[in-house]
């Protein structure tokens, strides 16, 4: 094993340790926020594999997250009347954590199948087709009400299949005590801490998987497809195999992220996975740096905090130079979109490599001096 790889493994071990110790130092609220960052990281790892590494643009990854999220919600659900598919009624069927791999596989299969028509589409046309998928997906969900809960959605807050600290009220003293969640000897008191550990454990595992996938022959082949399909095919790379596989794996990641998002929000409806989500994922990958791995963390942090924090500070980011043709409504939901859009354009114009590109540039500067 080369030294560089040993260093990488050591750094990864450090990151694992940091991730597991962090909840002791931060508030419950921060833990919840960071859980979402972990979830976005998983989705970004997947999208990056497809768009950054293999060069296949997807503007519709939110649709695969939707498939994952709905798989989890339907399997966990206990609606009245129950959701139904082909005569089977879903009532508390599967416990939340076991729905995660199922959600990944279902979304992965969908992605693999979508990969076949996508084979004939390149560049712009693929972007267009995936964009249309993401826009059309919520309409399909609303149509099949009996199976998906329609526009109302599925509430999984009160179902038995959900893991959470149980609250036990003493019938005599009315004192409520919380029974912590017990996972491999670790006692977790709050749902948010549980969510944090769940999402980050999965994120770290999938991160390592992505790294292993990409470091060898398989990763080289994917990059070859991106750089020149013609050259790749001439060197014996089966384009169809690699592209559909990239779609499948990428959708698997998205499905897992969607599943975790459903568990985190304890509720899904078509608006949980809007077209904006697909776009934000692309923004995240671009901010991190197309084709990079660890800088994607920056992308995940970026898309989460831009959505949550900046939305609440509209006034601060409405510059005075916006032409006022009407009255500015400072509570309007447009601010994050403007900031996202402008930053996205600026990155493409000034630093097309994202955070990864900046780091590379800085490193080049440092080594030149030495």
């Amino acid at each position: 094993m080369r030294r560089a790889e040993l260093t990488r493994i050591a750094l990864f071990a450090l990151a694992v340790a940091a991730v597991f110790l962090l909840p002791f130092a931060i508030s419950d609220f921060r833990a919840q926020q960071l859980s979402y960052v972990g979830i976005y990281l998983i989705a970004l790892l997947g999208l990056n594999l497809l768009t950054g590494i293999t060069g296949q643009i997807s503007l519709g990854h939110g649709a695969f997250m939707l498939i994952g999220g709905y798989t989890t919600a339907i399997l966990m659900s206990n609606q009245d009347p129950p959701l139904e598919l082909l005569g089977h009624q879903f009532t508390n069927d599967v416990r939340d954590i076991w729905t995660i791999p199922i959600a990944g596989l279902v979304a992965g299969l969908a992605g693999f199948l979508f990969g076949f028509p996508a084979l004939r589409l390149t560049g712009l046309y693929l972007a267009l087709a995936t964009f249309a998928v993401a826009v059309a997906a919520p309409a399909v969900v609303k149509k099949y009400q009996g199976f998906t809960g329609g526009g109302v959605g599925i509430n999984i807050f009160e179902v038995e299949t959900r893991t959470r600290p149980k609250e036990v009220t003493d019938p005599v003293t009315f004192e409520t005590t919380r029974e912590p969640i017990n996972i491999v000897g670790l006692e977790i008191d709050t749902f948010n801490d549980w969510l944090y550990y769940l999402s980050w454990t999965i994120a770290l595992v999938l991160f390592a998987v992505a790294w292993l996938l990409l470091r060898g022959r398989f990763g080289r082949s994917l990059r070859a497809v991106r750089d020149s399909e013609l050259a790749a095919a001439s060197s014996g790379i089966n384009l169809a195999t690699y592209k559909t596989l990239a779609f499948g794996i990428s959708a698997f990641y998205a499905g897992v992220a969607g599943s975790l998002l459903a568990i985190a929000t304890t509720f899904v409806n078509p608006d949980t996975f809007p077209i904006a989500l697909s776009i934000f994922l692309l923004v995240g990958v671009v901010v991190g740096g197309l084709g990079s791995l660890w800088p994607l963390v920056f992308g995940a942090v970026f898309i989460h905090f831009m959505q949550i924090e900046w939305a609440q500070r509209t006034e601060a980011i409405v510059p005075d130079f916006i032409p006022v043709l009407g009255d500015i409504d400072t509570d309007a939901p447009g601010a994050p979109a403007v900031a996202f859009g402008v930053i996205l354009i600026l990155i493409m114009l000034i630093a097309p490599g994202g955070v990864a590109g900046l780091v590379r540039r800085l490193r080049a500067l440092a080594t030149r001096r030495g």
Partner: protein
Amino acid sequence: MAQFLQQVVSGLATGSIFAALALALVLIHRATGVINFAQGEMAMFTTYVAWALMEHHGWSYWPAFVATLMIAFVLGVGIQRVAIQPVTGTSVLAVVIVTIGLLLTFNGLAALTWGAEPQAFESPFPNATWDIGGVAVGQRDVGTLAVVIALVLLLWAFFQFTKIGLALRASALNPDASRLVGVRVGWMLAIGWGLAAVLGAVAGMLAAPSFLLAPTLMQALLIYAFAAAVLGGIDSPFGAVVGGLLLGVGLNLIETYVDFVGADLKLPVALLIILVVLLVRPAGIFGKPVTRRV
């Protein structure tokens, strides 16, 4: 039969709106090989400008209409110069991402400036109907169709009979040769973007009276326009118009006569059209198949 004809007429009107937006997409794709994902949002934004001119500044419809077209033209030219020109010729992904950035920016700007609540948008045509042989023909529908047809003819004449039109066609066809004979290709591309923005503004102002003006006005319309452009052939202006009209009528008839689809599944049907056309005949009905030299 009367119902069928009525659906065809109103389908033609909706279709002409698709056609205008599809034509904008085709114009840009022909000149630069780019699909502008922000086309719909730019159209929505300029429609808001027209609305603000009428609502807040007391303009009447037609002056506001013309002023908006001019503003849209300047906006289109400016965007091409500032945001698109620098990434042209790098990678498809870079250009797509920039247009997505523009999509977000305009969507957000509209919501920020004018709020997210839907607004009523005035139509220059009366909301009455003519009775033609038992078929109730909406005057607004006829007006919409007439505006789009007039615009297409105007555009065609511009490309065909003016010097700038010739230069525009030349720089789309062969940029290097055009540069050699003294055409300023960069500016021609910018003018192309400006014209596309004008078409989008018209589509937006025609769509707003029936769909209500909101930041989400053009999101579904953009998908329909994509479908129309792909159906007609993404490089064929004539195809875009025919594709738009076909799609408008087709979707209307499907909505009325196919119970399963109804109003809910119109978008997925458009998606299906996009996928099927791209897979079976990527050049569309009127496009020429591209052969690639390796």
